[in-house]
């Protein structure tokens, strides 16, 4: 009980406390008044997240140390479980198709420098790798590949497939891989896209493969499940694969790009969505991330075209891999997301030249897609390895007679699983 009447200052602070929720900025207040206001707010039980942020935003030292001393934390009230992924759970695997990675890594420095990089040099290149300083990385060359896996024929790691060697060696949970001709993109507001954190976000929040949500990813801020979405399906499943997209040079095939040489992808579609169960899609290896613990063995370097080359138009290895992964995910109950993040893909190569050299890939898709669409795994397949072995057997049986590339792929897949088991059991 006070005997003195309250001072004018005290009354003013009390009045401010009454209207505290209507303030948007407190930084004009002198520190001692700010402190008093903070303590009174606490006593009045009026400290909530918004108001706490106001005080923190003033940047005044005494306030900040008081908050520290009281151990007041900004508690996020999640609508979904907030899983925080630590940097050391991530490996960024880069296939160095071109040996000079300077401009690529400089452009990505702000985003990549926190993480460990695994850089695999395309064994077909003779030149030395050029890597700028300041990154935490390990490199592997042809010599390393030969040392670790011997001279196995069925599984080759040349060209774009050299990245799979990185997947094999990594010990991390999350792997992110971006082609070395891709750079950070800008979103519709002109902000640079952090592709790594978007992939991590995709992989660490649930996927919803069993029912389509018309507002796309319900776990994104500002979105949710729509009316009519069954409640029992709202917890979702683990996301095992995150497929990103490209601006500028989209991942079109050679005939399409050759027919429309001026076509560039300028549309930034601000969505992440889950590819529904049993729906197949073509995976673009240009910008991809996955949960190695869940589906690692299913990302495999097995589908090599006879004339596979160094431009994406001359390959379909990722398309094949993607469908294997999707079959595995559908069987094991994992999800696959597509959409954000975008990367900016530089101009490289000539679609017409690629088409002249390699068009088999386009033709083979006619057989590949129906095969995977009807592929069903047995209940005995409990792990990704088991699934891959079953798929390989089916490939050999059903597609082997159509083209030798399929028999080679099936053999390679079996070899790959053996290799995976060997390498991963070695500490």
């Amino acid at each position, binding site marked *: 009980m006070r005997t003195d009447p309250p001072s004018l200052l005290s009354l003013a602070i009390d009045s401010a406390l009454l209207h505290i929720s209507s303030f948007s900025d407190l930084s004009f207040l002198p520190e001692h008044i700010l402190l008093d206001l903070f303590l009174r707010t606490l006593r009045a039980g009026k400290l909530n997240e918004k108001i706490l942020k106001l005080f923190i935003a003033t940047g005044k030292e005494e306030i900040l140390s008081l908050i520290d001393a009281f151990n007041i934390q900004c508690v996020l009230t999640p609508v979904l479980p907030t899983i925080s992924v630590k940097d050391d759970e991530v490996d960024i695997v880069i296939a160095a198709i071109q040996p000079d990675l300077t401009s690529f890594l400089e452009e990505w420095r702000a985003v990549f420098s926190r993480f460990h990089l695994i850089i695999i040099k395309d064994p077909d290149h003779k030149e030395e790798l050029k890597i700028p300083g300041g990154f935490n990385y390990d490199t592997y060359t042809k010599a390393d590949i030969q040392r670790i896996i011997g001279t196995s024929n069925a599984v080759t790691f040349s060209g774009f497939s050299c990245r799979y060697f990185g997947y094999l060696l990594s010990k991390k949970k999350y792997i992110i891989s971006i082609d070395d001709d891709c750079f950070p993109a800008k979103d519709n507001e002109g902000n640079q896209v952090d592709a790594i954190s978007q992939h991590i976000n995709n992989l660490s929040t649930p996927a919803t493969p069993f*029912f389509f949500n018309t507002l796309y990813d319900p776990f994104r801020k500002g979105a949710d*499940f729509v009316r009519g979405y069954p409640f029992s399906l709202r917890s979702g499943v683990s996301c095992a694969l995150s497929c990103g997209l490209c601006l500028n040079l989209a991942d*079109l095939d050679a005939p399409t790009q050759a*027919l*429309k040489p001026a076509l560039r992808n300028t549309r930034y*579609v*601000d*969505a992440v969505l889950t590819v*529904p169960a049993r729906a197949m899609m073509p995976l673009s290896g240009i910008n991809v991330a996955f949960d190695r613990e869940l589906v690692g063995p299913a990302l495999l370097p097995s589908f090599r075209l006879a004339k596979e080359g160094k431009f994406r138009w001359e390959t379909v290895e990722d398309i094949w891999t993607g469908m294997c992964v999707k079959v595995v995910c559908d069987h094991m109950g994992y999800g696959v997301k597509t959409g954000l993040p975008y990367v900016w893909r530089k101009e490289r190569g000539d679609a017409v030249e690629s088409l002249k050299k390699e068009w088999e890939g386009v033709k083979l898709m006619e057989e590949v897609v129906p095969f995977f*669409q009807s592929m069903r795994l047995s209940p005995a397949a409990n792990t990704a390895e088991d699934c891959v072995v079953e798929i390989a057997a089916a490939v050999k049986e059903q597609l082997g007679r159509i083209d030798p590339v399929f028999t080679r792929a099936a053999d390679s897949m079996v070899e790959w699983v053996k290799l995976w088991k060997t390498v991963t059991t070695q500490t």
Partner: protein
Amino acid sequence: MAGGSMAPTPLLKDELDIVIPTIRNLDFLEMWRPFFQPYHLIIVQDGDPSKIIKVPEGFDYELYNRNDINRILGPKASCISFKDSACRCFGYMVSKKKYIYTIDDDCFVAKDPSGKDINALEQHIKNLLCPSTPHFFNTLYDPYREGADFVRGYPFSMREGAPTAVSHGLWLNIPDYDAPTQLVKPRERNTRYVDAVMTIPKGTLFPMCGMNLAFDRELIGPAMYFGLMGDGQPIGRYDDMWAGWCTKVICDHLGLGIKTGLPYIWHSKASNPFVNLKKEYKGIYWQEEIIPFFQSATLPKDCTSVQQCYIELSKQVKDKLSKVDPYFTKLADAMVTWIEAWDELNPTGEGLTKLSISNGPAK
């Protein structure tokens, strides 16, 4: 190969009807006037038929109230809901056009990120006139849009796509949430403009919202029955959901496509979440049974028309869902009544032929 058509979208003003259910007034049409005026409107007046609904000047329309519905359908009028926007499907039945666009009376013109007014109807027409791709997912979304195409790996034999039966638009501002979500997030607004149209893959179900919806009546019309809701029924706010699930199963069976995404409209009114909860309550539990039913529903090969598929579905509903609640027996019967009423109001050459055959000698 997908061709990005540079030609302007045809108006289709003699081939499209706009169906609007209303119980209040049609003031919202003023905002839509620049886009809707060329078209014929079918207004289905719910609630008290003695109330006069004023239609803004200059629109060409026909209006049906409950008395009209009873007069036209006779005893079959029992399949049309009362005191629920589900009554709109009566408009689909009486229309004589190829395409239908239906919109709620609390939906307004939205703006795209550049600030331009969105002509929702034009986008729906674009969606319906070009093919869908339900058999294989295109990661660049609608490959027929200008500036897009099929991605590497997409088989050429699948690039012709399937005819588009339904175009499902979305909503900015008040999102289409169910009552529990509305209660937990009363202030959430949908501010994200996702610049994409995409096909919902074959075999995947989705929640179809009737607020901003267009469809090809000739391809799928009879499947767009919005069920028994509202007055005297144990459930509400599941009318469009029910139609959507039936429609998707039938589209998958007949090889038709359904698109979702653009266009956006601006949804202005959030209905009372407590009232909604009362209406939806049973639906929230029932949908746990309903969804597996639709997910596993298969139609026999000899069901080649929408009506045949729908009748077959109604049998399966009666068979498998009646144990959930006797409501589904009533609903299954209403589904049959709906098809009978549809065929009566829309006799086809086929129907006339069947009539003459049945008059001939017995097999």
